């Protein structure tokens, strides 16, 4: 049984471990979490009726101008990162939800300063968008923008380990496709989604003069008479950070309090505010998770030649991944112990480049053998990864952890993306899972609107949870199991992993199944 489980993990895992990614650019680095916690009450938190709560309410009554019609939204999206934006785009692309008006919240204006001109050095925050998530970008009209900016398709991925016992190589051709996915800088994805929402807003947005915005479409219930054309209204809420959320007694709106004493009301609050979600804490969602005691070092490097393959090599202390981002540049995500990460981020650039080449090719065991029991792999033979010639960005290290919310939905509050699940970045699935969430939630809301259900009705939101939670849990478990399988350097285990690689490499239906799972076409690995 134990053996079965291990093999299973190795076989499955080998499909995924190609890219490590940093998703969550915005919310992780900045975002709402810096907000001083003044009040941790929420309607969902039943025990909230204490003195702090009461004083907060009094405070609000004194200071704010509640229930101003302008402050009423159908949906408040907290967190304007990639996932939050993707959700807003998805809402607008579905006929039954495009009439909804919503506010997107991104409290930290400095974050916006990141979005410079295109001739910037490539950002090291990149995402590998798998093929079925590309269709989301296409559907919402964000894809054109991505195509006009730096991006890199990859049609191959190669995974191998330091023992030289096994390797797996996937080609898009194996599943009759041209590509497996596309690596795009997060800032490009974000800007693409934003521009498809409303191009004009961008200038205002990037100057940082707004804190919350409101989009109103034709057909919006409140404005139907005035606006025939689809109009955009900006609303400035001063130093607006979320201090508390309060489910109103009538249970149909959530009041969101801001630090300046203002408040807005929304029928549904969508927490897209990243791994350290403020919405999640305020609403009282319970989570499980742990820290891996590993750091990931990320940076951008340059090769002598262009790269069209995603590479990942498993080393004793964690995997190193190389993702093509176009123009001879590649992104590196290198998982290691915290001590090593301090050392590698402080060493000289030349030494670091040497260390990277050592990790990718020069060091550790021999190259895996391409032939297996006399079988000639031909096209899918093992290849040497391209050499790194130069470091072109800063190096940044951040700790890895796994976190999964026990519920995704409470009454009138729902979590998407990293707020609901932050997975090990081993396979770069973070933003893909987040996009999956965003699309699923928008569809579930559309179904609810079609049936005249109340926005934010728990039974509707639970359908989203039922759809996404098993998929996300499965991915998190596979990544976690894979990470664990590689954190042990033990003879028999190494052989097992190698066996897994061989199975994945040489059994064709299995390989297809794994690729379809990793690229999101199939819901379950192996059985789908």
């Amino acid at each position, binding site marked *: 049984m134990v053996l079965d489980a291990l093999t299973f993990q190795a076989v499955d895992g080998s499909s995924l471990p190609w890219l490590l990614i940093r998703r969550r650019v915005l919310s992780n680095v900045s975002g709402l979490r810096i907000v001083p916690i003044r009040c941790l009450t929420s309607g969902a938190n039943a025990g909230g009726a204490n003195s702090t709560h009461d004083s907060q309410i009094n405070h609000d009554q004194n200071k704010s101008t509640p229930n101003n019609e302008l402050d009423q939204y159908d949906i408040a999206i907290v967190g304007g990162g990639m996932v939050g934006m993707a959700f807003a785009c998805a809402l607008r692309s579905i*006929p*039954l*939800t495009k*009439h909804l008006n919503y506010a997107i919240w991104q409290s930290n204006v400095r974050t916006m300063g990141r979005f410079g001109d295109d001739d910037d050095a490539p950002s090291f925050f990149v995402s590998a968008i798998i093929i079925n998530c590309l269709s989301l970008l296409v559907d919402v009209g964000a894809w054109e923008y991505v195509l006009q900016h730096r991006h890199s398709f990859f049609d191959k991925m190669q995974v191998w380990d330091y023992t030289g016992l096994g390797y797996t190589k996937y080609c898009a051709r194996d599943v009759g496709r041209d590509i497996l996915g596309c690596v795009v800088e997060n800032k490009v994805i974000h800007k693409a989604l934003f521009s498809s929402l409303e191009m004009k807003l961008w200038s205002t947005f990037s100057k940082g003069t707004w804190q919350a915005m409101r989009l109103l479409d034709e*057909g919006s*219930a409140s404005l139907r008479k005035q606006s025939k054309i689809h109009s955009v209204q900006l609303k400035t809420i001063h130093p607006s950070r979320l201090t508390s959320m309060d489910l*109103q007694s*009538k*249970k*149909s*709106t959530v009041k969101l309090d801001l630090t300046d004493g203002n408040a807005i009301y929304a*029928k549904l609050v969508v927490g897209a505010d990243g791994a350290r979600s403020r919405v999640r804490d305020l609403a009282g969602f319970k989570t499980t998770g742990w820290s891996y005691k590993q750091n990931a070092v990320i940076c951008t490097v340059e090769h002598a030649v262009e790269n069209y393959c995603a590479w990942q090599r498993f080393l004793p202390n964690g995997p190193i991944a190389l993702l093509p981002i176009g123009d001879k540049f590649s992104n590196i995500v290198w998982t290691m112990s915290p001590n090593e990460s301090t050392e590698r981020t402080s060493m000289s650039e030349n030494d670091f480049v040497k260390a990277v080449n050592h990790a990718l090719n020069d060091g550790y065991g021999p190259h895996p053998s391409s032939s297996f029991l006399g079988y000639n792999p031909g096209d899918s033979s093992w290849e040497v990864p391209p050499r790194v010639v130069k470091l072109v960005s800063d190096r940044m290290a951040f700790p890895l952890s796994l976190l999964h919310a026990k519920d995704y939905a409470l009454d009138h509050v729902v979590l998407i993306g990293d707020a609901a699940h932050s997975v090990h970045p081993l396979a770069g699935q973070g933003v893909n899972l987040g996009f999956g969430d965003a699309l699923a939630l928008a569809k579930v809301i559309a179904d609810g*609107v*079609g*049936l*005249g*259900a*109340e926005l934010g009705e*728990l*039974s509707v939101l639970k359908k989203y949870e039922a759809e996404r939670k098993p998929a996300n849990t499965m991915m998190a478990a596979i990544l976690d199991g894979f990470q664990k399988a590689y954190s042990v350097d033990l003879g028999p285990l190494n052989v097992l992993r190698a066996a897994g690689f061989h199975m994945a490499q040489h059994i064709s239906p299995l390989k297809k199944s794994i690729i379809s799972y990793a690229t999101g076409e199939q819901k379950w690995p192996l059985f789908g």
Partner: protein
Amino acid sequence: MASKSWKLRRLLNPNRTNPLNFSISRPSRSLRTKRSFASAPQSAPSDPSRVLPPPPPQLLNRPSQEAASSGPGVARGRISSSLNESELKKFSAIAETWWDSEGPYKPLHSMNPTRVAFIRSALCRHFGKDLSSARPLEGLKIVDVGCGGGILSEPLARMGAIVTGVDAIDKNIKIARLHAESDPVTSSIEYCCTTAEKLVEDQRAFDVVIALEIIEHVADPAEFCKSLADLTDANGATLISTINRSMRSYATAIVAAEYILNWLPKGTHEWSRFLTPEELVLILNRASISVQEMAGFVYNPLTGRWTLSDDLSVNFIAFGTKSSR
């Protein structure tokens, strides 16, 4: 489908040798009414006769004269032919729980999206409305008879309909009003504590008349259907949903739902009051409403969801249009 319409035709044939007896439930009902006045219906669990499900009455073995003589008598003695005192008391006792989706009305809450889906598509087809619109029922005047706490009226209002919700229980209406206030879209619903008969007296008329899960609780289903027909405009539509009087419905709607799963308070339904689809079609036809479409609701215990199906053996809904005479 073919066999169903054949069955209907057979039922509607006046030359049929063994006419269906609609009054079979009446003797037992009047007996039960007396008993429930004697023992308070609210204290149902303490009543030993309620601990076990009541046996299903046997079909077609009651003298029809008895039914014929007692039926009209009962009806005449009341203010309104469709009100049933003991049923009113029963539902008044749990009115507070209408919007508790885990409470006594949990089955209705879980079934509601499926009912709404049927109503929406049937009405869109009949009135030529756009199914893909967020407010497909825009402009339709709808009355929800037996609206309870408003769990159907609110979705209808959100879909753009001009909704009137009526219920004979004052408490229900108060709860429905309170709940609808929270949203400007639903606060436009007109809630009245009244009956279908009273609305007819007031000469009200609607494009659509909907009475869901209510006909099994009224005293005289035929009279009730007549009132519904009178409320329906020419070319209007009538929708009625109820529970079939089948062995399966006895097992699921009464034994399972009330006694095993405790979904519903014991005594919520009396099996003998249930109408079969054929009976419903017949009494609607007599009230000049011709049934165009019927569908069943089937519960999947694994997913906890209801789906529409051809299986009418437990919960079903009928969509009819007013035929001009």
